[in-house]
């Protein structure tokens, strides 16, 4: 069995951690753009109802010195922010009629 990535109380989200617990905006954006809507929707559906508990849990740690598993959980929430427009606004992974994301390069992430 693979090692758990997320804190114990959020084991239900662990199956999503490998794909979506990503440290940088560029990685999270690439993951969004290379996923199907079904994959994005499954991740969104799993995390959104848990957000209140997740944020309450994460807020007990100082942002700059989180335990490793909490840090992974924080990255997972940042991916929810990343996919939100795909699910809620565009109904597709990329920005509809949008610019090539690979050309819009993060300098400070």
């Amino acid at each position, binding site marked *: 069995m693979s090692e758990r990535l997320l804190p114990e109380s959020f084991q239900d989200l662990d199956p999503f951690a490998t794909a979506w617990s990503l440290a940088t905006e560029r990685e999270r954006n690439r993951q969004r753009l290379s996923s199907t809507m079904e994959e994005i929707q499954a991740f969104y559906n799993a995390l959104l109802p848990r957000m209140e508990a997740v944020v309450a849990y994460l*807020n007990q740690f100082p942002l700059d010195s989180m335990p490793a598993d909490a840090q992974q959980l924080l990255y997972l929430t940042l991916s929810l*922010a*990343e996919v939100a427009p795909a699910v809620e606004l565009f109904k597709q992974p990329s920005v509809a009629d949008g610019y090539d994301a690979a050309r819009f390069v993060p*300098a400070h992430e």
Partner: protein
Amino acid sequence: MTAVATSRIGATSNGKTWHAQYPELGTEPVPIEPYISPEYFALERERIFRKAWLNVGREEEIPKPGDYLVKDLPACGTSILIVRGKDGRIRAFHNVCSHRSNKLMWNRGGSCQMFACKFHGWTYGLEGQLIFVPDEESFFDLKKGELGLTPVTTDTWEGFIFINLDPQPKESLKEYLGEIGETLKGYPFAEYSATCYSWTTELRANWKILKDAFQEAYHVAFLHKRSLPDSFTSKSNPFAHGTDCKLYPRHRKMSVYGNMEHRPTPVEEVAFQFGSLIIRNDFSMDRLPAGVNPTRNPSWALDLNVIFPNFFVDVSDGTYFTYNMWPLAVDRTLWEVRAYYPKAQSAGQRFSQEYSKVIFRDVIMEDCSTLEQTQSVLASGAKTHFVLQDQELLIRHDHKVHEEFVGFYKKQNKKNKKGVTANV
């Protein structure tokens, strides 16, 4: 215009009141030629970018002595080295070695005690002085004291670093910014600049196509119908009319309407609990100086501050963002976009900032496609002019300021008087 005059505009006036305040600007269509003419572009490089004050960064980027930034300015044929000296002062130099003009620093920035040229090892101190020349004895009458880096005039405003490539600028930065600089006094730039997210992209569009797109809100209801369905528009204000505008001799500002009845999406609802969103019905006038949202309109999202020639400072409550448009060619522009936030104190705030920046970025992705699509047909000759409505006043004003700097049509009108046909 006085504050009394602007306050008459009201939130969603349909009375074409903006142009009425500035009758000297007229209401005629404006020419497309400045966006496609290589001759016009050559003049812009000389008469705008070598004369005007240009924003090149923020003080937070170089907090300690020895910290430096490298800013390439292809439109001006140079690169600038901006460095904080041992005395804490920020200085700027042409990033050009005094020996055989090699570009001195090739990276984007960093921290060091001295700058050594890769070519032959000439080395300069933080104050630009030449301190070491390898094999110095083989040179002829080398006057090291006169061979420091070439200084560039620099100054700061509200923590923003500006440079001026004119060897003798006609005005100080304070004079150049004038009243618009005063209106932002007291905005918490230092606090909000703790976190910076930024992107760069090279667009196939004239730099003024970019500027135009971000100094009007008319396009929001159409181009951003998916991404911003009800943030800047509402039943009472379907075309995102601004709540206020003001033109200065060179610069201009506009207050953008915010729909306080905006219905947040589920994820936005979560983010909303932790601040950082532009559309928020709990924004605080107390945190904003009198010059921001000057009419104190409760349906307010943000103020656009367009600082000539290529710098936008768009301020909201809890966040601000900036644009710098750097022309590379008449039809190519390097665009820098930055979103600034206060230091996140908790995971919730960090999440909220991420959501805010992702939406901001995705909205801009919609703009970017349009900018290139516009440029791709601009030289078709199908149209010679842009038709502007009342709420596109800022674009009209920009044309006037450009002409004041560039003098392109003044020259053509002279030719006209001599019997040469002008194409304007």
